[in-house]
């Protein structure tokens, strides 16, 4: 199951934002993205390396304003 793949990879679900978040990897997946993509796609995205900035996996790319607000909330 997709949820198990994310939990196993160290992601935690944030109910307020409906995001799977991994603070160490600095990556967040929206619930909609998880629902709309296959397990294989998800696993591939989880394996992707990331720099120091947050990476958001959304169906619709978040705008700068949304990114800034989410980064502020996520710390």
């Amino acid at each position, binding site marked *: 199951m997709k949820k198990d793949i994310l939990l196993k990879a160290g992601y935690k679900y944030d*109910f*307020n*934002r*409906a*995001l799977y978040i991994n603070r160490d990897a600095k990556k*967040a997946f*929206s*619930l*909609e*993205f998880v629902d709309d993509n296959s397990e294989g796609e998800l696993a591939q995205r989880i394996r992707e390396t990331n720099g120091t900035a947050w990476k*958001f996996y*959304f*169906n*619709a790319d*978040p*705008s*700068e*304003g*949304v990114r800034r*607000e*989410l980064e502020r909330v996520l710390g």
Partner: protein
Amino acid sequence: MPERTVEDLLRVQYVQLLPEVRRVAWQLETEIRFRTLPILHGLNHYEQLIVKSRVKDCESAIRALQRRQEGRIFDPQRSMEYSLLSLPDLAGVRVLIFPRSRLLETDRVLNASFPDWKPDPVLGENGTVLAPKYNGYCSGVSEKVKAEYQVVPMLVGLFWEVEHGAMYKPDPSLVDIANSREMKLLKNDVEFALSRFEAVFESFVAENEI
């Protein structure tokens, strides 16, 4: 002057829409009361049917719209694209009914009265239908404000009123409690127990031909 936030713009829209939303709620409640009148008059002394309407309050409407956005956040750069009119339940009517056999009858009657309304049932954890729910427009009253009606087993419906009032309305931070695994399991247990109570009650009535 600071720029208006998306929430501010939606509050303005809410105030502008409110009279129309109220008219839709009154229309739908009146129509449902009228359609269910024959059932109401035919109830046995141990059966009940209650019709309630409500207008979604401003902050609940804004939160509901926010929950539809990815990341549950409004994009300030798209502020003009958001509209409370995209919500299916600005006006709502709930028909509480006991016991369950009357629910099916009521659902059939209302379904025939609102044939174009879109079904969107309330589902339980295992995918079973807990309550039939529909949304659509009250023609002749508003072509833009959508309304919703649901037909709910009375015991479960009254539990939801308390549960939703306690968990969601007073303090959004309580959402963590509502979403905790333990509370979800307990909620399922309560819903199951109440449904079971109704089923056993009904079979008892049928066996004894009360």
